[in-house]
């Protein structure tokens, strides 16, 4: 394992040698070897990422009315609504009503999100639900009878919905701060360049800060060449991203799928379209 890490880090190290000075290179290499140190060029996300501490499912409008301005400010920050806050020079809240409204809406958003996820999960078979629950590390919530049949389908779906909604809100935060969820590749190539490495490190930080989220890497190819070869190529692209995440000991939380050339973003048949279609997508669940 350690040999593999060194090999990969060396490759990344070498591929990043082009435009940086020796000091930066040294730092970068150290960062890659000790990935627990947040890399200098990547924002530390731990403070910005939403942690849903409120297990009860949030406040109603009436409850929000009873909170003090400072409590509302804290709550708005927690929910990622900082940009909506209007404060005077002394830090006093100027738009209490709007903030309460925004908080209610963000609650409603997560409710509608839950509805969507519930619908999706309802359509799955018991076996598929069990598989997801295992992947999400909530095996203890699965109750089976002697024949291995699921006994508590509804509760399991509820538990999964909670987890899924949490993931989607966390991902929404990552989106908001400009996180990138797609990496692009050269023709018939699986190489991860320096810019791509930075994006992957950003995701590694995100996953470490959100221990419940799991990641599906979806590999894609452009339409050129044969379908089955492209299916294999798409998987190799996703695997090379997973390999970097493996440096952060995240491989157990990462699954890889390939869609080959079957799900293009752009349906045109030209270089611009092909560039967008040769990609790996980060999908959290």
């Amino acid at each position, binding site marked *: 394992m350690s040999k593999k890490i060194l090999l990969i880090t060396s490759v990344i190290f070498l591929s990043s040698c082009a435009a940086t000075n020796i000091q930066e290179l040294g730092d970068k290499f150290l960062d890659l070897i000790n990935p627990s140190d947040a890399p200098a060029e990547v924002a530390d996300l731990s403070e910005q990422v939403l942690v849903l501490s409120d297990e009860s499912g949030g406040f109603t409008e009436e409850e929000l009315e009873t909170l003090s301005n400072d409590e509302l400010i804290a709550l708005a920050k927690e929910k990622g609504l900082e940009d909506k806050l209007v404060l005077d020079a002394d830090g006093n809240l100027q738009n209490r009503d709007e903030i309460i409204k925004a908080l209610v809406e963000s609650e409603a958003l997560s409710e509608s999100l839950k509805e969507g996820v519930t619908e999706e999960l309802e359509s799955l078979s018991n076996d*598929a639900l069990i598989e997801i629950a295992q992947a999400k590390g909530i095996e203890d919530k699965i109750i089976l009878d002697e024949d291995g049949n699921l006994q508590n389908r509804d509760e399991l779906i509820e538990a999964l919905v909670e987890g899924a909604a949490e993931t989607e809100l966390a991902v929404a935060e990552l989106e908001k701060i400009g996180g990138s969820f797609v990496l692009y590749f050269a023709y*018939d190539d699986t190489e991860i360049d320096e810019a791509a490495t930075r994006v992957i490190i950003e995701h590694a930080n995100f996953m470490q800060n959100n221990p419940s989220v799991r990641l599906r890497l979806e590999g894609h190819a452009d*339409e*050129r*060449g*044969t*379908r*089955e*070869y492209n*299916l*294999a*190529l798409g*998987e*190799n692209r996703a*695997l090379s991203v997973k390999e970097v995440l493996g440096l952060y000991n995240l491989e157990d939380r990462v699954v*890889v*799928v*390939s*869609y*080959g050339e*079957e*799900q293009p973003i752009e349906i*045109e*048949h030209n270089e611009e379209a092909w560039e967008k279609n040769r990609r790996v997508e980060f999908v959290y669940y």
Partner: protein
Amino acid sequence: MKFLKALILFSVLLSLSANALLEVNIIKSKEELFPVVIAPFEIIGDAHQGADIANIIRDNLNRSGQFNALSTNELVTNQIDFNFWQEHKKDAVVFGKIEQVSSKVFNIYIYIYDVFSEKSLYAKKIAVHNSGIRRIAHYLSDKIYYVLLGQKGSFDTRLSYVTVSESKQGNRTYRLQISDSDGYNPQTVVKSAHPILSPSWSSDQNKLAYVSFKNNRSEVFVIYPFLKIKPIKLPKFDGIASSPSWHPSGESIALTISKKGNKDIYLYNLKTKELKRLTTNIAIDTEANFSPDGKSIAFTSNRTGQVQIYIKNLETGKINRATFKGTYNAKPVFSPDGKELALIHRVGKDYRLALLNIATRDLTVLTQNKSDESPYFSPNGGMIIFATNQDNKGILSIISLHNNQIVELTQKDGVVREPSWSNYSN
């Protein structure tokens, strides 16, 4: 091998009837065609269903690239005016009649005459149920092909292919379909919101293997499209499982599996459920195809850094590289005689259908298209069906290896691709 530009191009829209989802368009070559007259069959009694027979036969023969089959206004009976047909440069005359025996049963008579020797080459009477009219027309087409050329035809066979349609909301629907060899009688055997690819017929025609993403990953499924038998469930493999190819025995199936990320070709025995690894290289090995004798597989690999085709002898275990021309050769399929491979070969920026002579390593590019895919031989080896793009739309194309005549099969609304040609009907 003559090239496409040598063809005289003119289009004939052959079939647009309600039950033909695929439209057929022939880009015809006038080279080396066998001139034959297929006269309209004489209808005796209430047997109008039979009026189509001569048309179906004519269309079949014209699609093969071997014949120039025409109709005639002359009534042709056993008193044949051979001088007339000699003057009109026809080499053979086919005629027949269909008579009603009961409400659902007909007798069909068919006669084939050689115009120059003025001799009968074939005469036959067949009883047929009225639901089997098209089928009998294909059967008779194969007979005519054999009688006049001394080779088997590929008419009484089936195609499978995948269609993709998109709703106004942008939702795609994928359909795995099977049809007669002329695109008629299309039937949907699998419908899905997820991609379907690589359908492949077992040699006994009973089973169809294909790849589906219905569980959000590529998996191989085996169904019995004509029998009420449950689909065969393959074990669940980690990573991708794809690219099924039948062993000629129909008992086992080669497929690509990516255990621990390494894509190799495995042989899965449907009876013993045994899984045997056929390739072990760390590179991508995929797109396996069995030789007709089942003793070797051709496959695609990027083991040298380039995408090339290799052949593994399953008895000796030896792997030989098969393609040496160009930087991209993929998706090999054996010709029915095992001597050639149809494959996809990159020329500049284009991916074109090509034919490789395995022994001499001669590679002949067959089209001037931009993106050919998924070649498959007709069971007599006379034609190759493949997918290509035309005006940004996926269509199927059938090329005659006799004179490079092209037949296009298109879907009015949507895309058609991933063709595969069945063996002969039993």
